[in-house]
């Protein structure tokens, strides 16, 4: 171990899309981990989200001789190729997107469970199981595995109220302008909707703007991710709930796992699940996972704009949950439980 520690390791970090603010938060956390652990981090990814181009990037990193690779796995067609690399001796940790059957640990949220959570919270706000009326559901990229899981969870929770009629799920598009137009159309078509629920990063912001423009609307807005625009919508009351996926943990933890396992020769070549937790954010309350210190909405907004503040806030988690990852490693089945 001492020898391994002396040689400066190189870790490859492959994301499925460059230039997505949420992904960028993950990348920044990974870079913090690399600095903390004194390893070299190579970040790469395809220009457009496509599994095959991403797999090629992973293969190229492996061929260029990196010591370990962290990658999101948005496509089942990457699995075989990743396992070949693992078999050849380069360990791989997944984050954010799970490839079923990859022989390595996965760091991410419980996607179905988080969908259930969102559905449950929306249902509470519209009057619980006795609620009666329309709820609009939008999926920005039908066919994307994580989104399909979230959707399953949301629908499961909403189904508890027999009076709730689901409108959709409609294809609301990922491009922010098209996304806005889609939500605008959905609300115009269903002006009495009780709630609008999105599954992707641009949704909460769009829903907020649509709600603000339609004076008659009192729909509850809910969705995912803590981008600046989404938090803005929560702050001005045009949207109501957004779930975060702790990008910090998703970025930091994979690097920690790789570095520890290489330095200490820990075998990680089998599936496993490391929960990155779910953040529940409303304008009045912020619930962080792993029993972290309570956070005000203001503080959260500040954090989303500053790396240093983020690192400081998560220090206890780095020293606790993340450092003790071996203890927290669960069977992969837990992810979609």
């Amino acid at each position: 171990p001492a020898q391994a520690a002396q040689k400066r390791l190189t870790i490859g970090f492959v994301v499925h899309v460059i230039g997505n603010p949420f992904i960028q938060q993950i990348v920044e956390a990974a870079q913090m981990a690399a600095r903390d652990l004194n390893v070299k981090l190579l970040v790469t990814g395809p220009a457009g989200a496509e599994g095959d181009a991403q797999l090629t990037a992973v293969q190229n990193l492996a061929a260029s001789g990196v010591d370990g690779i962290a990658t999101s796995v948005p496509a089942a067609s990457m699995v075989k190729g990743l396992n070949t690399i693992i078999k050849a001796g380069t360990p791989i940790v997944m984050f954010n997107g799970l490839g079923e059957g990859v022989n390595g640990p996965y760091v991410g949220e419980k996607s179905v469970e988080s969908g259930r959570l969102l559905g449950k919270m929306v249902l509470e706000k519209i009057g619980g199981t006795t609620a009666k009326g329309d709820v609009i559901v939008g999926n920005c990229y039908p066919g994307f595995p994580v989104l399909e899981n979230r959707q399953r969870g949301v629908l499961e929770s909403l189904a508890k109220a027999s009076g709730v009629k689901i409108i959709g799920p409609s294809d609301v598009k990922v491009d922010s302008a098209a996304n806005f137009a889609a939500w605008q159309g959905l609300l115009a078509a269903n002006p009495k909707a009780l709630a609008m629920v999105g599954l992707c990063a641009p949704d909460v912001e769009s829903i907020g703007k649509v709600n603000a423009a339609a004076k008659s609307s009192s729909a509850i807005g809910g969705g995912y991710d803590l981008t600046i625009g989404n938090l803005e919508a929560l702050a001005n009351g045009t949207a109501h709930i957004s779930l975060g996926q702790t990008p910090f943990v998703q970025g930091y933890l994979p690097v920690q796992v790789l570095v520890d396992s290489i330095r200490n020769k820990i075998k990680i070549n089998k599936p496993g699940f490391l929960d990155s937790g779910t953040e529940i954010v409303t304008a009045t309350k912020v619930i962080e996972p792993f029993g972290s210190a309570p956070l005000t909405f203001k503080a959260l907004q500040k954090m989303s704009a500053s790396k240093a503040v983020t690192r400081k806030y998560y220090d206890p988690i780095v020293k606790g949950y993340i450092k003790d990852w071996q203890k927290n490693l669960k069977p992969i089945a837990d992810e979609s439980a």
Partner: protein
Amino acid sequence: MSAGAKSRRVKLPEEASVIFALLVLVGIVGALRPTFLKPENLLNLAASYSISALLAGCIVYLLSMGEIDLSFGWILNLSAVVAGLSMIAGVPVWIAIILGIGAGGFMGAINGVLTVVMRLPLIIVTLGTASIFQGLSLISNKSGSVVPTEKKLTENIFFRVLGGDIETPVPFILIFVVFAFLVLHLTLHKTRFGYRILAIGSNPEAARLAGIPTKKIKILTCTLMGVVSGIGGILFLGFRGAVDPSTGANLLLPVVAAAIIGGTPLSGGAGTVWGSLIGALIVGVIGVGIVFLGIDAVWSTLVTGLVIIFAIGVDQIVRVRKNRAS
């Protein structure tokens, strides 16, 4: 019959067929969901698609010249980033806007100069510059969104009017874009510059021998595309209040589709600016109509495709009929 005699038949405008296709689509969605036809809803729809319509109006210039620009989405992005970062850095809003549009024009000019100097079609050159502009945007916004949040910015009249905080019966962005279309139409069809663009698109070698400065016109047209993309970026910034690194990534296909559905051929020498506006609206009605009708996400892609084929089919039938009649 003497040359130049006016035909007595009332001549339908070139855009008749595509207008008809648009009306058919609006009619179908409206028949199924009458709320769709509420003026407010239609205006909102139009406003949402106004930026891509604007770009379609300008890409008509390049198509008329026999060229295609693949980079304009990233010019839009980087222009908006330049303006947004300038505002955040404290540059007065109006100056930041000029900087953004100027950056757009500069990028367009680079495309133009490269295509002229390298003697390559613009599509090949912009295959490279699209990546360059995207890359510069990623570097300058540090892969994150650019969001001017300070009160003194968001309360600036620019953001308030464009963002819809100040109520106008018709969204301001729509008024602006319709005005821009008027200018684009007149420039292409009533000025020497437009004549020269069409002449180059019709027969580049004949244009050169007619003494038309083809290189200069190419560079100017690319610059114009850059300026209009820059304006698009500024409108986007004001309308949405932020720019993401992915802004503009998905503009290419709908914008070019709008222009060609509108009736501008890819082969050069002809183009209709108004047609591209109708084309953009068709793209918009299809997009919004599908969610309006509550078509399931899994089915919506298929339905979109079928409706596109239906719309261009209607367009084509009317066009052929019309040509046969004349």
